[in-house]
């Protein structure tokens, strides 16, 4: 794996490989010394065009636990505000020869574009409303730790699917892992044609009982001013996951940050069924696994002498080289 651009391009085996590696790193996290030297001397650049505290710090922590050097570059207060294009920013930062660039932008496909412009491994940390692959990987990891395999499990993704990159990555990832996915939400926030990703579509929660896992999406307040829903009150009345509709055997997930009282009632957030903090915890080990996979894992190593994309050769090094490949 050279880059992590989307779940769409991952098969089940690749997802499982990352999850398994994350489980190994989870053991490290329980040790007194939480750091391993796997990526010593490597540089990870966080390039964020959107405000993000959680994802960015999760990547930062992951890189540091692998002993990589981390540079954070936020688009605000930088040359980007002076009108520099994405391409020029990336070319400029590439001059520092980062081994990996973790990229968050408001534009679909931006990570893929950047992967063509510079030799670093690119990790998509969210591209517009398209994908957020590390979120989906940590969701799969969280479910595996909690439930074991999710083959045949029924997963409902509830809320604003239209504006959610998490939803798109999760629909694909959960299905790759054998689960059946249903999306539910207001008709104005379920994109036309989403069923062609293989999921079912519902506009109410009448059959939520059939779910093994309920994944609530964040309902952003600005959607109301854009008149996607008549009011947050009505949204909550129709689509909130709460003590009345959540069954004791169901697992509750949420990508954070939670709007208590909107998409989730307070009592379910605090219930033992909620794995929301486990998801956050999984974020670090899964992102460690992703960085390790790209920079030290199979097929991801870089020619140390290589400087440009055209010179890049996948040199087989590292202990976890797949010898059958």
């Amino acid at each position, binding site marked *: 794996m050279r880059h992590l651009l989307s779940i*769409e391009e991952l098969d089940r085996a690749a997802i499982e490989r990352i999850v398994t590696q994350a489980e190994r790193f989870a053991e490290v996290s329980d040790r007194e010394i939480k750091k391993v030297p796997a990526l010593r001397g490597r540089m990870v650049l966080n390039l964020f065009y959107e405000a993000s505290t959680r994802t960015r710090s999760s990547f930062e922590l992951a890189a540091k636990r692998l002993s990589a050097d981390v540079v954070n570059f936020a688009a605000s207060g930088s040359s980007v505000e002076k009108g520099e294009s*994405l391409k020029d920013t990336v070319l400029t930062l590439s001059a520092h020869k980062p081994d990996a660039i973790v990229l968050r932008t408001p*534009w679909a496909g931006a990570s893929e*574009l950047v992967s063509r412009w510079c030799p670093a491994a690119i990790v998509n940390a969210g591209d*517009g409303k*398209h994908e957020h692959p590390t979120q989906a990987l940590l969701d799969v990891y969280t479910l595996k730790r909690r439930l074991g395999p999710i083959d045949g499990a029924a997963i409902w993704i509830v809320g604003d699917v239209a504006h959610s990159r998490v939803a798109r990555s999760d629909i694909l990832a959960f299905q790759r892992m054998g689960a059946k996915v249903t999306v539910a939400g207001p008709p104005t926030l379920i*994109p*036309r*044609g989403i069923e062609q*990703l293989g999921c079912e579509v519902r506009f109410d929660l009448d059959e939520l009982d059939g779910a093994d896992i309920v994944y609530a999406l964040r309902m952003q307040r600005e959607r109301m001013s854009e008149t996607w829903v008549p009011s947050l009150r009505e949204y909550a009345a129709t689509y909130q996951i709460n003590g009345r509709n959540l069954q004791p055997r169901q697992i509750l997930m949420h990508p954070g940050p939670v709007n208590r009282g909107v998409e989730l009632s307070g009592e379910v957030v605090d219930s033992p069924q909620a794995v929301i903090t486990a998801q956050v915890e999984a974020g670090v080990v899964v992102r460690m696994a992703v960085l390790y996979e790209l920079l030290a894992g199979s097929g991801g190593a870089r020619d140390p002498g290589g400087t440009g994309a055209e010179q890049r050769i996948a040199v087989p090094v590292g202990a976890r080289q797949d010898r059958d490949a």
Partner: protein
Amino acid sequence: MTPAEPLIGGAGDPANILLRDVRALDPREGLDTRRDISVRGGRIAELAEPGTLAAADGQETIDGGGRLLAMPAFFDPHVHLRTPGQEHKEDLESGTRAAAAGGYAGVIAMPNTAPVLDSAPLLGAVREAAARQARIPVGFLAAITRGLEGEQLTEMAELAAHGALGFTDDGKPVASAGTLRKALQYQRLCGGVLALHEEDPTLSRAGAMHEGAVSAALGIAGIPTVAESTMVARDAMLAGYEDGRVHFMHLSAAGSVLAVAEAKRRGVRASAEVSPHHLLLTDDDVRTLDTRMKMHPPLTGESDRQALLEGLRDGTIDCVATDHAPHARDEKEVPFEQAPMGTTGLETAFAALYTGLVMPGRLGLAVLVERMTAGAALFGLPAARMAAQEPASIALADLDARWVAGEHGWESRSESCCFAGRALQGRVLATLAAGVLAHRDRTLEMVEA
């Protein structure tokens, strides 16, 4: 004041060329047979049995070998030449050079320039520049509303007197029905065609591509086809009510084809155009987020594409228009959602449509040629005809020539073409535009007598 010439530019020495033994195809003349065509002083002097004409003094000869195809040169009623103000994308010279390379003998330029072509002095200045710079004759549409803001009408009568062939706010819709009605009423005074970019902005919102399974998968805001078709239906009603003459631009939706057919059935004076990209590509081509596939209206679904093709075949859609919309490389080298909308089309239109529709038997060659030349008459201009004494406007093509779009670069300043890199068959080798040799492929041999 004498009325301005409708088309301007394309000056040059009158051609003296003998096209020997070419396949002469002109659907309007009922012509499809091998002929010698003698062009003298820029006019078609004679069409004769193949191999019977000898080159006169000073006449160059192109040997068609019974194989090269001579057609009436094409006419594109919808191009963006970006002048004034955006000459980094295209200018009058480069845009018309691209047109000539594509087999066109006339184009109509859109007024969404910077500043907008919404006043007679500005129109006059651009026409003067075109007289000097354009390789082929160019006509101009002026804006319907000042600054394309959709509110106040431009001085339509004065603009028409200064050579505007009609009016359009292309790039933007006339969102207000009341404003469009006033323009239709004013048309009684000034004449000219009202060419309409149909889009309901409350439906298209911030959409960047067609709304469907692909936009759902990509998480990109979609533009529903009803954003176009509802406006076509609305404006057809308005045009019928005011007995106005309207032309529906760049149709992209099956529903729009239905609305145009219905309007024509009711006797509304309406015509319509479709672009090569809407006839050949769909939103599936947007999956890779190649910004060359971002245009306005967006590439739609396969059922829309089929309806457009059927509409073109049965005449509901009158003509092909490229909506040649050049952009600079750096403007397109950005994430898809940030990229401007538009693709070039002049240099690839014939080959792309020949390869994609004629070769697989989806559209007859004669119908394609008719639809690629029909735009002139829709704007009150004479269509190119291959008949004696007519001004020589002829496109000469090799239907066997295979090429990859863009492999030898582009005449346009813009390389942003949705067909770039595609293997095409059929290549325009020479273009005579209003009696002047406006384009000649470097591979084409011309022998001097």
